């Protein structure tokens, strides 16, 4: 019945430019909305859906590519609040970009407290609006002037990071071999960094505990590599850091995680091909050249590792991955690995290697793995 009444104003799709300067694109979009409103029509904005269901794995580029399912938000009574918040957020972003300033996601959430009724009640609400804007413009949040709080990851090894002093703008060289027992911490924005290194590879590690062990016994010196602790699922900055370092210096990347579905599907998969939620920017935030040298079902048998039973949630994760994850779907090797684990109904942590001696991982496991490319997973 709604569509019978033509004089009530029509829905007008506002085009969002996908190139050019962010600030100009915000103005362009707003102009479109403004004109539509003045004509008493309903502005409509289209954003890609950011979910695993809307990505495909592109074997050529090696990461998740966003597909073209979109959601359309029309300005109506129902959406007026989100619409107001999105516009407010766009205004904030434009302001940040124009003045060359930054705001963390948390700060952006607090800025909204000035917006009266349109304020966000919890940070996840503002994060969602921010992610939608990112996807709308196909940019990453740093380009909008927003920064995450999350830490990028710890780095140690044969690497000199060339950064700029925030005060003077002069070059600063950070030698990651000279961090003592501490580490170099990946900043939230890594685009401007330069690298100097003679290392032969990068080793990305799931847990801080394992990383500490390798640093303590200067594995990086023995193996001539760069150690990076991801601390669970790698942040965007961490992924971008590894990617840039690897691309710049042509270094292979190895990933060492626990032998469980979380380590494989969440940590390794996200590092290698990106995530569904950030599908619009996976292009930059993934490391397609990464190889997996973490614990597998075969390793559990081969090294006779102590195990834990697979939990319900682990099995569900595997089923879900095989059914819905485009990366797993195209990889028979990963499917086999996952199925083997489910058949064993067991999982093993990296630190389980300590059963054979605390430094067994350094003396035996890693050298074994590195020497046998057939034991790697893609």
């Amino acid at each position, binding site marked *: *019945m*709604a*569509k019978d*009444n033509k004089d*009530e*104003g029509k*829905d007008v799709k506002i085009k969002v430019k996908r190139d050019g300067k962010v600030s100009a694109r*915000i*103005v362009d979009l*707003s*102009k479109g*909305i*403004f004109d539509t*409103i*003045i004509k*008493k*029509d*309903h502005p409509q904005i289209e954003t890609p859906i950011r979910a695993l269901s809307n990505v495909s794995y592109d074997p050529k580029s090696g990461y998740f590519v966003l597909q073209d399912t979109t*959601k*359309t*938000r*029309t*300005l*109506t*009574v*129902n*959406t*007026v*609040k*989100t*619409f*107001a*918040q999105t*516009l*407010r957020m*766009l*205004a904030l972003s*434009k*302001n940040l970009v124009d003045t060359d300033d930054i705001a963390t996601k948390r700060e952006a959430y607090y800025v909204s407290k000035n*917006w*009266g*009724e*349109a304020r966000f009640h919890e940070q996840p609400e503002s994060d969602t609006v921010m992610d939608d804007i990112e996807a709308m413009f196909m940019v990453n949040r740093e380009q909008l002037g927003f920064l995450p709080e999350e830490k990028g990851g710890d780095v140690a090894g044969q690497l000199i990071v060339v950064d700029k002093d925030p005060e003077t703008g002069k070059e600063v060289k950070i030698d990651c071999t000279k961090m003592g027992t501490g580490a170099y911490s990946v900043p939230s924005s890594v685009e401007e960094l330069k690298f100097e290194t003679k290392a032969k590879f990068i080793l990305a590690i799931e847990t801080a505990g394992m990383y500490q062990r390798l640093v303590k016994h200067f594995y990086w010196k023995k193996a001539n590599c760069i150690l990076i602790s991801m601390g669970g699922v790698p942040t965007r900055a961490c992924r971008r850091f590894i990617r840039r370092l690897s691309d710049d210096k042509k270094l292979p990347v190895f990933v060492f995680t626990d032998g469980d579905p979380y380590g494989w599907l969440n940590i390794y998969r996200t590092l290698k091909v990106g995530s569904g939620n950030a599908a619009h920017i996976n292009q930059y935030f993934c490391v397609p050249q990464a190889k997996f040298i973490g614990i597998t079902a075969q390793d559990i048998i081969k090294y006779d590792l102590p195990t834990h039973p697979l939990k319900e949630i682990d099995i569900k994760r595997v089923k879900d991955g095989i059914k819905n994850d485009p990366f797993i779907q195209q990889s028979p090797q990963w499917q086999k690995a996952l199925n083997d684990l489910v058949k064993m109904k067991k999982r093993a942590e990296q630190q389980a290697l300590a059963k054979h001696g605390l430094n067994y991982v350094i003396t035996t496991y890693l050298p074994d793995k590195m020497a046998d490319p057939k034991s790697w997973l893609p």
Partner: protein
Amino acid sequence: MAKDAKENKETLTTADRLAEKQRDIGVAEFFARNRHLLGFDNKRKALLMTVKEAVDNALDACEEAVILPEISVELIDMQNDRFRVIVEDNGPGIVKKQVPNIFAKLLYGSKFHTFKQARGQQGIGISAAALYGQLTTGRPIKILTKIGPDKPAYYCELHIDTKNNKPEIIREEEKEWKKEHGTRLELDIEATYQKGPQSVDQYLKETAIVNPHVTVIYTTPKAEQFVFPRATDQLPKEPKEIKPHPYGIELGVMMKMVKWTECRTLQAFLTQEFSRVGSGTAKELCEKAALPPNTKPADMTPQMIERLVEAIKNTKLISPPTDCISPITSELIERGLKKEIKAEFFCSITRPPAVYRGNPFVIEAAIAYGGELPGDRPSEVLRFANRVPLMYQQGACAINEAVIDTNWRPYGLNQSQGSVPQGPVIILVHLASVWAPFTSEAKEAIAHYPEIIKEMKLALQECGRLLGSYVNKKKRVQSEFKKRSYIEKYLPHIGGALKEILALNDTQERKVIESLKDVLETSRHAIELDSVEGAGEDGFGLEFEEEKTDEGEE
């Protein structure tokens, strides 16, 4: 054993000894020991039961005499858990001869043998209260009654002889009373007074709801006075006395009827003592029972009577007449509710008459919703049988079962499995019948006849539908208001943000807000389709009807 037997020859047998102890138990004596059977189980309940019996009798008397009832109830705290109950009515009065029997003889009354809708039935009520008073305080019941303007009033004080179930007149005299006619009783009992559910206060309030033609003036033991004024001058339709319908007659009752009847033939007995039995039907019954129609009832053997009862079961009979029932009528129930309960929505239903075991009955239901009723608790269920509030044993009552079995969720109320609905709602159910089936003599809960429960559920569902359409309309209106305030709240932010990004001037900003307001408010019905996608996300998926729902909020 053998030895015992020998001894028994010389002395009395055990049975003989027992026989010495066996004798009649007086009705009054029996009830004196088993007061809980009549509802006098505790002090608090005793006060309620006494008031209830007195008021029920007064109302029945007034209505029978076609007098608009005006009843005054006064409770006086005599200290040490003693209360004086004084109930006065403007009824027709009682002739002197009958006074002692009515107030001081159990199982005496005009209603037990008749087949007619009335509040009291067994004739136990008020004399049981008198007995209870006598047992707990030793004081007699005092009666003052007057039957006409030019007659003197009669005063007496009565005791019950519990062994013989006979009244004893302690004092009597003629007195001056300026009332034209009426009865006043005064009774001291052991009791406690409390407010709240199951209190005298609540009972009188509920009585006022289902008897909107009654004025009650009530003085509490704390000397507060409440007046429940009548809401109509229309007396309830006088219920007609009917003859029993054959379907409701059990073997034992049939035997008594056969014994007492004055009819000389079975044919005449069947047509004259029962309703809905014509000569054709009587013949059919006789045939099925293999009895000649001219059998003398007095000569019938128990086997013959059994055959007759069997024949009745297997014969299709017309349902009993239903004009013998006097429902309150939905209009008057609603009026009664409105005057005593502060709610925003009322509805009520009177079902057509139905029959259980040969007894005609009518179910009425009503609902009060919203307003000052508290919303976060189980709904209150007001139960009535023949205009009398049922205050105890809700869980055992057929009304409760019907309320629980009804699915209230479609009508906009919350309800968990196996319980009454939640919400700001009062549910009222009234059963009117010539013979209301109770689970016990205390008349606290209606028995679970499937026919009765089915009618109750139908009545509740009808009310529920009316409630549902109101509640849903109210919800729509509320969300409409919410939407409107939504627009008011967020439009300035769209204007403000666009102003900031595009460096608009104030006029342009105002134009944006005005245009948006126009678009969003005038094309409300467009929302329905447009919001399908956005709705779920924003948690605001309510649909709207095309019309603007202005009515409904009264």
